[in-house]
């Protein structure tokens, strides 16, 4: 089989990036809960402890705040930590170190230091884990100047964005949707980088722009396929990075399609969709709009346990189809 069309799962792609980064740079090490012999709660680190040893694949105590601070201190003193939160929800325990320290140290110190820290956050709902293990908090962190926030949607980007994050001199927060870990896709074997701050057009179309993140990219693509059968050509943009936001790609698309739908799993209010909508309203693309902007986000509640309720709490493919259909219906 040709190596160039090799397929890996998303989780394998993340693991390969971690391994290649550690092989290339002895300063790189991993920290997290149960990432050693257990292999990580989602088996992302897998066997890495056997390849790189316990000093580079470090199990931490269950102490998110302290361990996050240890990662910040190690980054300041010349190491390159890659920190795994077991669930993104547990970032709430470590917000002090993420928001007050990692994000601000470079600025507070007048640019005299950098904090080359990567944090990985298994995020999102759909696993039946209920309200404290299913959140999408990426917009929280994207609100903080000093952090960079990426949300890879494919195995290819999971590897490329993680390697770019590890190279980056600033703290980069990597949100990985748990439902994507087992999805497969083409992943080149050699190390490569996907640039932070660049969105990508996943499907071209002239009738409506759908801006999506993480698993919503896949639902938007499914919706676009169905809509194509009805004569609606949707353009799907995978945002990939929340901060710094790639405004240009979204603006150019909206100027072309004149319609915008934002699809994201985080709670709808004050979320990513609000930022994209406002950004378009402030831009030259505003004059091109033929219809109100539509936001499709998570419901205004914690993620429920019951599977029917859980599914209803975040946008699903039929929701996207219905909203786009309504939006485009009135076109001239």
């Amino acid at each position: 089989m040709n190596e160039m069309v090799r397929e890996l799962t998303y989780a394998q792609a993340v693991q390969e990036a971690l391994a290649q980064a550690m092989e290339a740079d002895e300063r790189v090490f991993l920290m997290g809960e149960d990432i050693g012999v257990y292999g990580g709660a989602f088996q992302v680190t897998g066997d890495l402890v056997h390849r790189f040893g316990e000093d580079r694949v470090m199990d931490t105590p269950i102490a998110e705040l302290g361990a996050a601070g240890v990662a910040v201190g190690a980054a300041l003193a010349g190491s390159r930590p890659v920190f795994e939160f077991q669930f993104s929800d547990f970032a709430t325990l470590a917000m002090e170190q993420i928001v007050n320290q990692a994000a601000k140290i470079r600025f507070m110190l007048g640019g005299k230091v950098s904090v080359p820290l990567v944090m990985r956050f298994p995020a999102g709902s759909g696993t039946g884990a209920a309200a404290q293990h299913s959140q999408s908090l990426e917009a929280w962190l994207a609100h903080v100047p000093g952090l960079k926030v990426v949300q890879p949607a494919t195995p290819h980007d999971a590897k490329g964005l993680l390697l770019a994050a590890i190279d980056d001199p600033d703290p980069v927060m990597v949100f990985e949707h748990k439902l994507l870990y087992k999805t497969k896709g083409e992943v080149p074997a050699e190390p490569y980088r996907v640039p932070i701050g660049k969105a990508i057009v996943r499907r071209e179309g002239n009738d409506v722009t759908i801006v999506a993140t993480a698993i919503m990219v896949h639902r938007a693509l499914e919706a676009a396929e169905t809509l194509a059968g009805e004569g609606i050509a949707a353009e799907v943009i995978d945002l990939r990075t929340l901060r710094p936001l790639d405004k240009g790609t979204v603006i150019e698309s909206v100027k072309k399609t004149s319609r915008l739908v934002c699809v994201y799993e985080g709670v709808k209010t004050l979320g990513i969709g609000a930022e994209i909508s406002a950004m378009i309203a402030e831009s030259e693309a505003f004059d091109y709009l033929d219809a109100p902007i539509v936001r499709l986000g998570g419901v205004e509640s914690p993620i429920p346990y019951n599977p029917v309720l859980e599914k209803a709490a975040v946008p699903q493919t039929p929701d996207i189809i219905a909203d786009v259909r309504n939006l485009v219906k009135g076109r001239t």
Partner: protein
Amino acid sequence: MADTLDRSAAPAANLRPFYQRFSAAELKEALRRMYLIRRFEEGAEDAYTRGLIHGTMHLSIGQEASAVGSCMDLRKSDYITSTHRGHGHCIAKGADPKLMFAEFFGKEEGYCRGRGGSMHIADVEGGNLGANGIVAGGIPIAVGAALAIKQQKRDDVALCFFGDGASNEGAFHEALNMAAIWKLPVIFVCENNKYGMSVSTERSMAVAHVADRAASYNMPGQVVDGNRIEDVSEAVMAATARARRGEGPSLIECKTYRIRGHSKSDRNRYRTREEIEEWQARDPIGHFETELVAHGLLRDGEIAAIRAAAEGEIAEAIEFARNGTDPDPREGTRDVYTTLGAA
């Protein structure tokens, strides 16, 4: 400076480790730094009162022995992390008061180019990873710096200053546990000045001493008189040697007192005048002068000269700061990131 004084007043064999370890010149330098801290704090207070500095500040007058005593045995490549009450730590680690005052005045010439102010002064080249506005924020960071030291196979240490209040934070307990299980080269120096803002340690801690908490993390915990520089320094020397040998962290609790209020908003409603006066009588600088004179290491006339030099240096630093450059508001978002990626 040459060690010209006759040390016969106390035969070497009978000297305690502090006087064996440091030369007369080093001891005088320690006294000079204590004065420098005192004058720095007084100068800062004065500048604030005169409206030359905005914001707030946390003064460490009365705590100079723990700052200087802790740093005397450190190398430039050793790290410290500091607290919101961190001016003394900064000077003790060798920072330049000129650049510190420039930071206070918010000037480009300051340590943080005027972006950090009193609570974020750092001197990374000098091994000071920074003061911190969050109580206990620096403790895990010190442990992380020690982890990096170990990973890089250096024999440096990280010395972590914090207060009694910080020892009630979760970050303190999490960080000490990790330092202990990974045997990291950290020295935790608690400056117990009796109050976390207004709440006394009696009201906020179930144990009598912060050092008692070391037992939970299987590390040595020692209480010292934080106003006696020789006591502080000897405890830190032992802990530093242990850390450099790879034997892990230690906790030292310096019992001390802040003579001034918590910050500029403090109306001293939680303590008595008698208590403040009692601690003023135990002034760490006066104590050290008496010690040095008794050891024949300092002549009376030299005290006045060291004081005058410190006063001159602070006056010069304030003048330097007043004449500094104000940052350009157009550069307001500079240094939020090192690089800003593709967008």
